[in-house]
């Protein structure tokens, strides 16, 4: 059966190629430490399961030591020129969209197929496995149709990866911090603080603390999944459901969405907020968050109102 390990192999090989390209890139003043960074990441994907917990911890220290001290540099090799790209675009017309659509199409078809035939691939990871297949199929199609040099997709992809830089591992680092927080009991400590903040006897007050608490705790943790167990345990279940007799489905479902409003406002949710800013080469690292606040704040108010209206009909 195909599992997530297959995706890790694909990613590991790609990062290994990036490491080799970096090592040979004399235009990068920090090429050795930079190559080491991508090589460590490749090691994590290819051999992480054999390193042991402490081994993986040391690997993370290595990544931190390079990226945290500014030793992750980028090369200055020029990519394709604008004029060149325009000429290529004029030549092929809208057919250039087709290979780009292979990836989502394969993700869609693969997800449905793997769910239907669960013996082929792990149905829990169907989408990611299908996505990896989509990438390989699209790459093969591009080689057959566009006939680039063998290394060209990897050189171009490497340039884009360098643009993202250390932000590439930020989401994974934050997920790991969440695990340390969980082990240290941060959730319970926050729950205790918030539990003291609830005004007694006021239903509206309790709903507001619950909704705001979901958003605020999500802003701190970067993830509504981490906030939900804490807020449900501190307010949602004991006060809103048991004491006030609210509808559990509404309190859980819309409470989670109040948390999502927090996700839109925090740099801690790096994969949604900081990585796109890096990928789009925005000058302001917080540019995407700035655009989201205007929707997130009214949506938070709306969600709190919905919990109050629909939860206690």
């Amino acid at each position, binding site marked *: 059966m195909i599992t997530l390990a297959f*995706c*890790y192999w694909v990613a590991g090989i*790609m990062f290994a190629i990036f490491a080799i390209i970096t090592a040979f890139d004399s235009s990068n003043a920090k090429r050795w430490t930079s190559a080491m960074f991508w090589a460590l990441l490749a090691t*994590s994907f290819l051999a992480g399961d054999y390193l*042991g*917990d402490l081994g993986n*911890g040391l*690997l*993370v220290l290595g990544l931190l030591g390079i990226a*945290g001290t500014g030793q992750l540099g980028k090369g200055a090799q020029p*990519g394709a020129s604008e004029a060149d*790209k325009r*000429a*290529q*675009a004029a*030549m092929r017309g809208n057919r*250039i969209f087709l290979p780009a659509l292979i*990836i*989502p199409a394969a993700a869609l078809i693969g*997800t449905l197929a793997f769910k239907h035939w669960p013996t082929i691939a792990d149905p829990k990871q169907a*989408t990611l496995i299908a*996505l990896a297949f989509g990438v390989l199929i699209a*790459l093969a199609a591009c080689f057959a149709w566009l006939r680039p040099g063998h290394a060209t*997709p*990897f050189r171009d992809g490497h340039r884009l*990866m360098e643009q*993202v830089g250390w932000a*590439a*591992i930020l*989401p*994974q680092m934050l*997920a*790991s*911090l969440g*695990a*340390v927080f969980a082990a*240290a*009991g*941060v959730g319970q*400590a926050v729950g*205790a*603080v918030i539990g003291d903040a609830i005004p007694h006897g006021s239903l509206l007050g309790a709903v507001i603390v619950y909704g705001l608490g979901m958003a605020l705790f999500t802003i*701190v943790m970067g993830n509504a*999944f981490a906030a*939900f167990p804490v807020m449900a345990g501190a307010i949602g279940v004991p006060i809103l*459901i048991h004491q006030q007799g609210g509808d*559990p489905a509404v309190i*859980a*479902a*819309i409470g989670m*969405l109040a948390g999502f409003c927090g996700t839109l406002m925090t740099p801690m949710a790096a994969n949604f907020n900081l990585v*796109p*800013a890096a*990928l*789009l080469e925005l*000058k*302001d*690292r917080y540019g995407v968050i700035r*655009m*989201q606040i205007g929707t997130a704040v009214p949506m938070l108010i709306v969600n709190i109102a919905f919990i109050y209206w629909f939860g206690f009909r």
Partner: protein
Amino acid sequence: MLVLIGIVIIVAGFVLRFNPLLVIAASALATGLAAGMSPVEILSAFGKAFNDSRYVSIIWIVLPVIALLERFGLQERARALVATMRGATVGRLLIGYMLLRQLTAALGLVSIAGPAQTVRPLVAPMAQAAAPPEASEEARAMAAATDNIGLFFGEDMFLAIGSILLMKGLLEGYGIMLEPLQLSVWAIPSAIAAFLIHGLRLIFFDRRLRRMVSASSAGPVEASE
């Protein structure tokens, strides 16, 4: 209570704009020490979690394909396509994209779009092409923001998404039995509200861009470029 020191470090670190990687490391160390863990235990816990969450970073495998297609003019083509659409504005484009993103996410298709898959190669260049040059940065940021908003307020309408399963499992622990469908239907009112609120903001965004254009060009805008 002492374990909350990690949260203080995170907030201070992000506000002061230190390198986030170092802030995370400092926060993990302080939190672990406050909870009575040894440095080796903290490092092991962090390493294990890092290894377990590698799936978060798999998305980077799309970069070689996307970058190659950009070499062959993908972004230019996306811009040219917008130029041929009569009446295309940033707002209208992004409202259409948001609707598509919400509907596909509601069917569980969360990974078919995203910052690397669709926003950078297609949506951002289209938005940029429909915006005046001085607003291109904002238009691109708005494209990424719209992608997130469409995803967040679409995905919970799907039965088997992670957050629905988390809620179901957690409530079961308190003796409350719910079917995923009972939870996912309550995502619908917020999905509609998000479409209306963000849609309205996009319409206002268009108006602001129009004022920008008429302010910067004292005279009719040249159609050819």
